[in-house]
């Protein structure tokens, strides 16, 4: 039986895998296709058609077409129709008086101010061809240079958008520009100037097909689920079945009681583990390459954007799901008696997840994280006595840099992850050890029906399938955030207002910090909050065993009110933090 269901799961994965294979071969061949129409050899008489506006093939972006217009109007006079620079052949295209630009100035008869003088110490360099543009490693650097320095007689005339357009066209003259690729701050560092990166493919049809197939499988499983449950032992249990007890009280498996939050958290953790490992194949944890490698994952590697988006959204979802899980446990009083150790383990994991989310966020190493990193690490310095050592331990140097990134990487992919695996295994073990999900003892139960592990596993697979479909949809529709890389250039000349928002899960801390003393509001109060949460099972009245398995039992009312208050305050602070502030 189960094997058949698994087939439903595997089949789309197989189809998905089959989709990957033919893709790679085709890509490489198209990258050297020229977007040029004119490429004439130098002839004694200049072919005036070379001065016509370049014709751009239809399969290029609007950005590149606009770029060709600007290049034609502004840049071509000096840098040539094929990017050859101001060669003798190209000067033959000019009127006789302009042929020797250095002597006549350009627009010879209407000299400056209408025309301009070519500076004698500068040559209009070639911008296309082997070995050219070598001073720029990637499209981002070229764009920044154009924006700041071109055209040379009026630097700053090009807008940011126009600089991207010209960059796209120049790189297509240089034959390194992928087709149908829109350059932006978030992907241009991945486009190199010295070699053509493989043409990125459009993954969306394949992803949509996969999502559709999985959605159909989910509907099929829901149809199965409509049959009456009962104790059935249709076949020998497999390994995954054996991770579950042979039967569980049906009371423990009600979605409206557990909300499926714990199981969903496990599933999200597994998703994060797999997608995280896949990201590690490309990610390079150095300040120079971190953000660039993220751009490679997000905009060049086939299905890379999907993997990164899944990792991002699973991480955000995990925070929400564990918050719901914590709320559920407190609002049903399930942490009572011997279960309170497991409550503490759960809280420990919540701290680890917050740290994992923060370190993962820092690993982007783009302009979006810069101030969160500065604030987060400077907060450590405010701690009396141990602050400076702690800062040194976390940052690994006098200020955030190479060592910090390496350390955040190690914490993220290894130390914190290992902590999650250990605590997670312990947490799940304790659930089993404490008699499964909290329900009244057998003699105080109304409902004595039991559910077999086969039905339980089927429900779990169903919830996982639904979660997968949802994650895939969100990941396809909403890309994970990314900004331009932090480089020496952006540190030296911060022209735009940096994004000063903390990551959303720390917005409440950012709002608290505005209240006053950094140590008290930024360090002490979050720790006090954590201690308060940890003390709930030890100081406040607990629910009675007979009350287990129900929402809002009478026994732990105070704890319920407390957790609702805490959550309301956190949500309120977050909302205030994102509200636009009034500028003076």
């Amino acid at each position, binding site marked *: 039986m189960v094997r058949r269901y698994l087939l439903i799961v595997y089949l789309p994965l197989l189809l998905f895998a089959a989709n990957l294979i033919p893709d790679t071969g085709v890509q490489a061949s198209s990258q050297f296709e020229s977007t040029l129409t004119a490429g004439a050899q130098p002839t004694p008489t200049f072919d005036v058609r070379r001065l016509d506006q370049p014709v751009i093939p239809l399969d290029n972006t609007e950005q590149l077409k606009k770029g060709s217009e600007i290049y034609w109007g502004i840049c071509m006079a000096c840098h040539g129709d094929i990017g050859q620079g101001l060669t003798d052949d190209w000067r033959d295209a000019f009127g006789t008086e302009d042929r020797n630009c250095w002597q006549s100035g350009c627009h010879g008869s209407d000299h400056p101010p209408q025309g301009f003088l070519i500076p004698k110490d500068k040559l209009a360099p070639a911008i296309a061809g082997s070995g050219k543009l070598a001073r720029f490693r990637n499209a981002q650097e070229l764009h920044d240079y154009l924006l700041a320095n071109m055209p040379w007689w009026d630097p700053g005339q090009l807008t940011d958008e126009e600089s991207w357009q010209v960059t796209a066209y120049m790189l297509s003259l240089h034959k390194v520009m992928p087709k149908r690729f829109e350059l932006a701050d978030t992907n241009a560092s991945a486009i190199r100037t010295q070699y053509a990166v493989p043409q990125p493919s459009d993954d969306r049809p394949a992803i949509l097909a996969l999502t559709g197939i999985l959605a159909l499988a989910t509907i099929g499983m829901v149809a199965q689920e409509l049959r009456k449950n009962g104790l059935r032992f249709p076949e020998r249990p497999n390994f995954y079945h054996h991770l579950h007890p042979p039967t569980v009280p049906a009371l423990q498996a009600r979605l409206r009681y557990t909300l499926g939050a714990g199981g969903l958290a496990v599933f999200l953790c597994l998703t994060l583990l797999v997608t995280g490992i896949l990201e590690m194949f490309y990610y390079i944890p150095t300040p120079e390459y971190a953000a660039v490698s993220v751009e490679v994952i997000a905009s060049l590697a086939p299905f890379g954007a999907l993997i990164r988006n899944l990792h991002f959204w699973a991480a955000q979802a995990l925070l929400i799901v564990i918050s719901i899980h914590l709320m559920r446990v407190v609002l049903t009083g399930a942490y009572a008696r011997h279960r309170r150790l497991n409550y503490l383990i759960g809280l420990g994991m919540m701290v680890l997840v917050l740290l994992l989310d923060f370190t993962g966020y820092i690993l982007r190493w783009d302009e979006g994280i810069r101030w969160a990193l500065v*604030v987060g690490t400077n907060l450590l310095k405010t701690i009396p006595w141990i602050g400076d050592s702690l800062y040194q331990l976390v940052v690994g*140097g006098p200020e955030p840099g190479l060592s910090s990134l390496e350390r955040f990487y190690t914490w993220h992919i290894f130390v914190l992850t290992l902590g999650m695996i250990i605590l997670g295994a312990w947490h799940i073990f304790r659930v089993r050890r404490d008699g499964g999900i909290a329900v009244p003892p057998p003699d105080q139960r109304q409902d004595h029906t039991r559910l077999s592990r086969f039905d339980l596993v089927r429900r779990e697979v169903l919830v996982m399938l639904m979660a997968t479909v949802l994650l895939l949809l969100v990941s396809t529709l909403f890309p994970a955030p990314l900004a331009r890389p932090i480089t020496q250039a952006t540190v030296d000349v911060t022209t735009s207002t940096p994004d000063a928002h903390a990551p959303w899960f720390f917005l409440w801390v950012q709002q608290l*910090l505005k209240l006053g003393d950094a140590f008290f509001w930024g360090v002490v109060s979050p720790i006090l909050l954590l201690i308060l949460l940890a003390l709930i099972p030890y100081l406040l009245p607990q629910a009675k065993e007979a009350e287990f398995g129900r929402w809002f039992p009478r026994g732990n009312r105070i704890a319920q009110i407390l957790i609702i208050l805490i959550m309301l305050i956190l949500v309120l602070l977050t909302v205030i933090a994102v509200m636009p*502030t009034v500028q003076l």
Partner: protein
Amino acid sequence: MKKITRRDFLKLSTNSLVMLSGILGIGGLIRYLCYPFDPTPPTEFDIGPATQYPVDSRTIVHYIPAIVIHDEKGIRAISLACSHLGCAIEERNFGFECPCHSSRYDLDGVVLKGPATDSLRKFRVEKSEDGNLHVFTA
């Protein structure tokens, strides 16, 4: 006081020794992890010839980051890192504002509104023999 048997004594001393070695080990671990791998950032910046900073000018030097002010009182430099938690502050008509936690400073870097409590740091500015200005952040 309860009498300690030989067995208890041995057990106690073994346990304490193991604990002591653990504490020493953690100390060593912390020292290992605190080694500063990255170089110390520069504390002296050559910001070019003094003629670039005429009277009544306010020039932002991003790589320090600082603002160099030249008025009737002379040339001085004020840090552009917020004294609260180090974000880069932005210029406003009243002076400066921090985008992170909305601290405000006046044109001379004195706190107008918290959470920051200290004024912006003042950097020493000196003119070297070649006529260039040097800013000292140490």
